[in-house]
């Protein structure tokens, strides 16, 4: 159920990126996809009644091993968030530049290339 809802969020983003005619909307679609995948990875690593994968002086290692959530997806997502931020910034820069050239965010009015 949780996985499916997250996948639905992903597909909503994909739908937005593929069908919308506005450059900012397309970027928003990409960002939604990004969030959904990140969330999906973290959902995969969750352990029922889990604890965060951070030790402190009072932690008992055996108990920690049995209860901690999976640290690897968290590390991956940390990387993926920053990558997503980079890609989105580049996309926003392109949107602004296209706006300066054409005075619009509308792809249908921008299209000069034949595809």
């Amino acid at each position, binding site marked *: 159920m949780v996985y499916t809802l997250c996948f639905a969020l992903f597909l909503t983003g994909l739908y937005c990126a593929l069908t919308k005619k506005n450059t900012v909307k397309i970027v928003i679609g990409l960002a939604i996809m990004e969030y959904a995948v990140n969330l999906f990875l973290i959902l995969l690593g969750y352990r029922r009644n889990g604890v965060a994968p951070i030790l402190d002086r009072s932690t008992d290692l055996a108990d920690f091993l049995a209860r901690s959530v999976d640290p*690897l997806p968290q590390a991956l997502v940390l990387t993926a968030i920053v990558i997503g931020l980079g890609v989105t910034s580049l996309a926003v820069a392109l949107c602004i530049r296209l706006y300066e050239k054409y005075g619009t965010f509308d792809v249908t009015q921008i299209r*000069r290339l034949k595809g």
Partner: protein
Amino acid sequence: MNSILPPLLIAVPLGIAFLIPLVARRLDRLADTLGNLATLSLLAVALLMFPLRGVYRIGGWNPPVGISWVLDGLSNLMLVVVNLVSFVATLFSIRYMERYTAKHRYYSLFLLMVAGMNGVILSGDLFNLFVFLEIASVSSYALVAFGGRHEELEASFKYLVLGSVGSTLVLLAVALSYAVTGYLNMGSVSTLIAGRQAEPVLLLAAVFFIVGFGVKAAVVPFHPWLPDAHPSAPAPISAMLSGVLIKALGVYALSRVLFNVIGVDPVIAGVLIAVGALSMVVGVFLAVGQWDFKRLLAYHSISQMGYVVLGLGLGGYILATGGARGAATLAILGGLFHLANHSVFKSLLFLCSGSIEQATGTRQLKEMGGLRERMPLTRATCTIASLSIAGVPPFNGFWSKLLIVLAAFQAGFAWLAAITILVSLVTLISFLKVLRYAFLGALPEPLRDVREAPALMSISLVLLAVLCTGMGLLLVPAVRGVVLDPAVAALSQGLEYARSLMAGM
């Protein structure tokens, strides 16, 4: 393995790319020197480590724990091809890029792209593959828009959107593989999912991998970004994009994951064959009607990538259905050899188009003509490359196409062989048109004082043309055993190979 060489492939381009904005902001000559030195040393490193085989444990952690690099015949072959083309492209850039501002950023982005490709090729870890895929993609998005004109920005945006969708799908597929196995190391994942390919989750992961890498490789249903993005970039970047980027990020990554991690079953191989054949036919027929030189070349890239995918898919199909091993290795050999050949002749063609554009100021074939006496060197190299891509003996394209046709016959797919030959003929017609309109006929009035490209640019053209002529020699058995056969073995041994090597010590 403790060799110092593999880290250099990543550290050199990254270090120089970080350094150039610091020291060469105003000094274009310094940026030229640093950029070319970097790619030259990368080529040297790639050649030096050609005989190296094994697993490099980054950070000293053993494979499933840390990230590892895998060096085998296939990755070493790809490294040589990528770094060779990037060296030639930077050499060409010295003079060609003078028409743009911010040359230091160009070199910086260029080296980041090369580092990304080297990272993808070396990587033996699924998530790490994604990270370096993104490095190469992000810098290529920016490079496509480097000229800053309307159509360049627009092509770059289109490329960015489709490319990001592809990358996100790859990430989702990596997440699914992790969810099923708990590992990211390719060898371990492959061991754990062996025999479970029919499970819906893994099927979904395979579909996402195929679509994601398919977008990067621009095979037919996912190709619409390529005919815009490749012509819009500056010529050396077009050469890099068509020559090596779609191969390193697309075909190489796809075949690595399909052959060595998920395992090729008849359905997946069938999809590859269909996609390959479709790309071949659609690409070439779209190319025939083009009058923009670079756009025409871009459509031919789609078509030629179809040959590579077809060869690999054919090999995979024969292996998966238990057919003759000889035919399978022949098909994979043909695919990989064509991949290497295409890198060389397609970069040469794009560099030729750049040299013509530099001289005449146009990319439209109808506005050219009569350049044969004005630009003899460009004409000679362009002719060699055209004959190569069309598969005329004795140039390199002929041999790889011949191998694919032979393999198709041996495997009993006579109709595929027929399509391959037919597409080759159409390619020949299309390039005869190019040669006719660009170099023969009367010299138009505005092009009276056209001159041959500067020496530095010509050197790169000649270098690639020599390779085009000589690469057929790679099929001489003694050479083939050293260069091509290890690469073929990496794919044709499939999963056992992954288990023995990638899972590490």
